[in-house]
């Protein structure tokens, strides 16, 4: 049998669970198969031309007759009770149609976190509350005929506040006598939640004999690290349009990563049946986790229900930066016990996270800080302690990497420092401890998504190849001779990284595929392309299984009325989870095509057995060389023989969560006179299994690195003493621009993941894990100073340098 035949013949077992033996493989069966026709190629992305022409329609690119413009009144106080709200003057502004505040909307406790049901985040939010908990919290909103009228009316709302003491330091949040930020009776969370102490989430996980292992270690190193807020900076702001359709159903067109979660959460919040809501995800201008949140659509939706008119809410950039979501700032304490020979015995991680005023993703992000980092190096014992606390500062949430970037700052700084203390080469030290194929993840069960997770074994794991190829690309041997004389010094650093692919045992995606009479296919997926290229990638997976060119796929994503369920675009899951559902649907369609071809040939008086049929180049072929095109088969099944629609659907959930691995390398130049750090070169070698669209995998890697070089070096939240965000514009919140970026090289290391579609695993989040620690390590190499805090501003570098010159501790 040739490959294609085998593919058709094996369809019956596609997607069936594999036996334990099959998993228990060495490198042999992890080879990348040759002969893919549609995947592992980089065709033009299906939506790229439309977008380059400016024709992509994002949420706000729709004119609605009679639309009401919604504007929000945000809290000027970090912590206050609302004593009274007087909207009389606001309502008098011409054109004002509706004013909403805590006194006139239903009081339903929920979480804005767009997670699966039941969301593992505390229910501590309300559409509006009688209390505000950070500068930028919701107080009220106005809907008016024009944006200007809405803005004027907002300024005329009179609010009397009873200002309360505020907490800005997470270390003070759970101290005795600290003011309670969530004192409302409705607020509830998972075990560990303690609102009386401002604790939004807490965990304590021990694996193995932690204290015994530390006691036996030759060397124990313990260090503290600090990482800041970060803003997503999606270029498209959060936007939502709502209206009632001709059947009096509520249509919500929203910039979201999670249309199905949005529908479910909205139904509860608005108190209307889920059946009455349709959520449409149009084109999305970037998400990065910031849109994995039911952040704003409830307000225009409520306005529409109240007034019967369409409504629109689009956040300004200042509102985006102040009142949307952020990356959790953390204080991390990392402790490692090692033997003289470099063997790691025990690892302990203690995280204090600031979740801001609300606890969206507070448990799961912090759990991933451990889940992505602790299993990377072998150890006998692990301990993870975590507290995520409320403060009166902006709200944290999901952000690309989901806790990983914070954790790797600590782990990978620590690994370098340990290597130095042991007198070992940092690369060699990592190589000897890093996990390999066939090993188990000892923490997978303990660190599940708010509950026990399924066990995990690493199968595809090309981390050693990543290290080899990255070292060669940056020419690591130059490290020893980089110039250190003079005020401008050079250094190189590296890190090893791992991430995940979806949430095992939780995430489910599905797809529907139907054939048209020209041999094209409609592919309907609930998965949300937010700029990742998933529409194209899922089309490639279908095209590979169907053996047609990718242009034959017409992809539609996503609409809760017209596409099947998908958990949404998060947790690096779309290719790995939804991709398999697409493959299942396509495999089903191929089975039906073979059946229909048998019927047709029989009707043509030229019968043939089904055995031996295979698909290739948009046709069903028989061993004797005869073939039937999909177009002819479709026409026949529509109008002539065995009439039916050839179509199928697939759903996929898995207990597998194969980590992608990566090694990152950077070369930096540090100016000791100014403290300025310039990143000269950056190399990322990544094992993401078989990249379905290699150029997009590169793009994800480059984009993640660009975003996180800003996190490492320039992006920062600064507040006034009252807790108001000062860096609330692109001018004051400094991202890496085209001029700041170093020479960047991505290497996609060869690898094959048996649990993924055509060998793929995830790629979109792992690049975010690297830049922070890689730059810290490169700076340490350049100037011999270990900085343990991001962002690495010139002030910090210069200060550390002066302290070192003065003989201070470092």
């Amino acid at each position, binding site marked *: 049998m040739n490959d294609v035949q085998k593919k058709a013949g094996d369809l019956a077992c596609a997607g069936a669970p594999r036996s334990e033996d099959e998993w228990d493989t060495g490198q042999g069966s992890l080879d990348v198969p040759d002969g893919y026709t549609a995947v592992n190629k*980089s065709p*033009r*992305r299906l*939506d*790229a*031309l*439309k*977008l*380059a*022409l*400016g*024709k*992509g*329609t*994002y949420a*706000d*690119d729709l*004119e609605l007759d009679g639309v009401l413009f919604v504007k929000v009144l945000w809290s000027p106080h970090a912590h206050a009770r609302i004593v009274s709200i007087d909207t009389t003057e606001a309502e008098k502004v011409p054109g004002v149609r509706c004013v909403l505040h805590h006194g006139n909307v239903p009081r339903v406790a929920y979480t804005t976190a767009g997670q699966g049901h039941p969301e593992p985040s505390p229910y501590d939010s309300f559409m509006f509350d009688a209390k505000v908990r950070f500068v930028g919290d919701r107080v009220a909103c106005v809907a008016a005929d024009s944006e200007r009228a809405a803005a004027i009316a907002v300024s005329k709302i009179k609010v009397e506040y009873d200002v309360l003491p505020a907490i800005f330091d997470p270390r003070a949040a759970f101290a005795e006598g600290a003011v309670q930020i969530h004192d409302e009776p409705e607020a509830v969370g998972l075990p560990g939640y303690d609102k009386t102490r401002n604790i939004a989430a807490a965990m304590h996980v021990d694996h193995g004999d932690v204290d015994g292992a530390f006691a036996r270690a030759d060397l124990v190193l313990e260090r503290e690290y600090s990482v800041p807020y970060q803003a*997503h*900076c*999606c*270029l*498209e*702001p959060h936007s939502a349009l709502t209206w009632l359709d001709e059947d009096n159903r509520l249509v919500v067109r929203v910039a979201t990563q999670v249309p199905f979660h949005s529908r479910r959460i909205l139904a509860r919040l608005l108190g209307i049946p889920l059946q009455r809501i349709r959520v449409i995800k149009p*084109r*999305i*201008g*970037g998400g*990065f986790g910031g849109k994995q949140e039911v952040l704003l659509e409830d307000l225009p939706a409520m306005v529409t229900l109240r007034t019967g008119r369409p409504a629109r809410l*689009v956040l*300004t*950039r200042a509102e985006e930066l102040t009142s949307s979501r952020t990356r959790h700032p953390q204080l991390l304490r990392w402790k490692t016990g090692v033997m003289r020979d470099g063997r790691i015995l025990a690892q302990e991680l203690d995280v204090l996270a600031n979740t801001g005023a609300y606890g969206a993703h507070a448990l799961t992000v912090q759990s991933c800080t451990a889940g992505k980092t602790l299993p990377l190096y072998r150890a006998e014992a692990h301990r993870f302690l975590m507290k995520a606390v409320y403060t009166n500062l902006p709200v944290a949430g999901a952000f690309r990497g989901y806790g990983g970037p914070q954790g790797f700052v600590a782990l990978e700084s620590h690994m370098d420092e340990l290597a130095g203390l042991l007198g070992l080469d940092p690369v060699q030290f990592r190589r000897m401890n890093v996990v390999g194929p066939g090993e188990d993840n000892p923490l997978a069960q303990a660190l599940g998504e708010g509950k026990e997770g399924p066990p995990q074994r690493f199968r595809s794991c090309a981390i050693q190849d990543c290290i080899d190829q990255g070292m060669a690309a940056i020419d690591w041997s130059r490290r020893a001779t980089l110039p250190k004389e003079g005020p401008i010094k050079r250094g190189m650093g590296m890190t090893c990284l791992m991430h995940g692919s979806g949430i095992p045992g939780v995430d489910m995606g599905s797809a529907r595929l139907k054939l048209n009479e020209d041999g094209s296919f409609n592919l309907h997926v609930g998965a949300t392309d*937010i*700029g*990742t*290229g998933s529409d194209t990638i899922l089309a490639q997976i279908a095209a590979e299984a169907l053996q047609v060119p990718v242009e034959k796929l017409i992809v539609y994503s996503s609409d809760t009325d017209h596409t099947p369920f998908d958990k949404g675009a998060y947790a690096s899951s779309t290719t790995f989870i939804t991709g398999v559902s697409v493959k299942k649907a396509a495999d089903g369609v191929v089975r039906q095509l073979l059946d229909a071809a048998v019927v047709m040939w029989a009707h043509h008086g030229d019968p043939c057995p089904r055995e031996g049929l295979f698909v290739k180049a948009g046709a069903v072929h028989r061993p004797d060389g005869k073939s039937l095109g999909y177009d002819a088969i479709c026409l026949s099944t529509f109008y002539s023989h065995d009439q039916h629609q050839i179509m199928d659907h697939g759903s996929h959930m898995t207990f597998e969560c194969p980590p992608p691995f990566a090694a990152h390398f950077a070369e930096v130049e540090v100016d000791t006179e100014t403290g300025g750090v310039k990143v000269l070169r950056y190399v990322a070698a990544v094992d993401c299994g078989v990249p379905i669209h290699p*150029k*997009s995998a*590169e*793009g994800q*890697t*480059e*984009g*993640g*690195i*660009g*975003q996180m070089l800003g996190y490492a070096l320039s992006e920062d939240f600064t507040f006034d003493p009252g807790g108001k965000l000062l860096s609330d*514009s*692109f*001018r004051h919140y400094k*991202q*890496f*621009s*085209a*001029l700041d*970026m170093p020479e*960047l090289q991505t290497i996609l290391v060869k690898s094959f993941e048996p649990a993924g579609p055509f060998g793929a695993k995830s790629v979109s989040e792992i690049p975010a894990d690297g830049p922070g620690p890689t730059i810290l390590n490169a700076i340490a190499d350049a100037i011999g100073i270990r900085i343990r805090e991001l962002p690495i501003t010139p002030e910090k570098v210069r200060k550390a340098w002066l302290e070192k010159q003065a003989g201070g501790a470092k």
Partner: protein
Amino acid sequence: MKIELEVNGARACWECEPHEMLTEVLRRNGLLGVKRGCESGDCGACSVLLDGEEVPSCLVLAAQASGHAITTIEGVGDFDDPHAIQLAFVDATAVQCGYCTPGMVIATKALLEERPSPSEREVRECLAGHPCRCTGHKKPVEAVLAAAATLRARGVVSDSGDDPIADTARSVG
């Protein structure tokens, strides 16, 4: 008030309020490829050409544009006839979420009309006003350089004189 201007080669006579920015008025008249990312001149998502020069339309009062020629992304190319710059962005996989792309294409057009053979540094300077959160800027820079090469090559081989970029390219060399 009424403004009269040339938009993508056609005369337009539009109503607007004196305080309204050009972005709003263009979008209200169906030119939705003009995006809003900051409305403070910091992101270039709203860029248009005003008499051939790139301007952030969020900083230009609609009234100021009266009597001038505006080119938006819709005037650069179409499905049937995409501009070489647009194709270069597509082929370099420089379009991820695509929200920054119209502004970058406009900026590139202005750059290449001025400098048909820009250095990589010049390309980076040009794109520095266009923060892109998706791509890390590598592929957009490649796209601009590729577009420049395509247009230069076309300038050398083509003898139609109607493409101003090709003309510049030819005259420069």
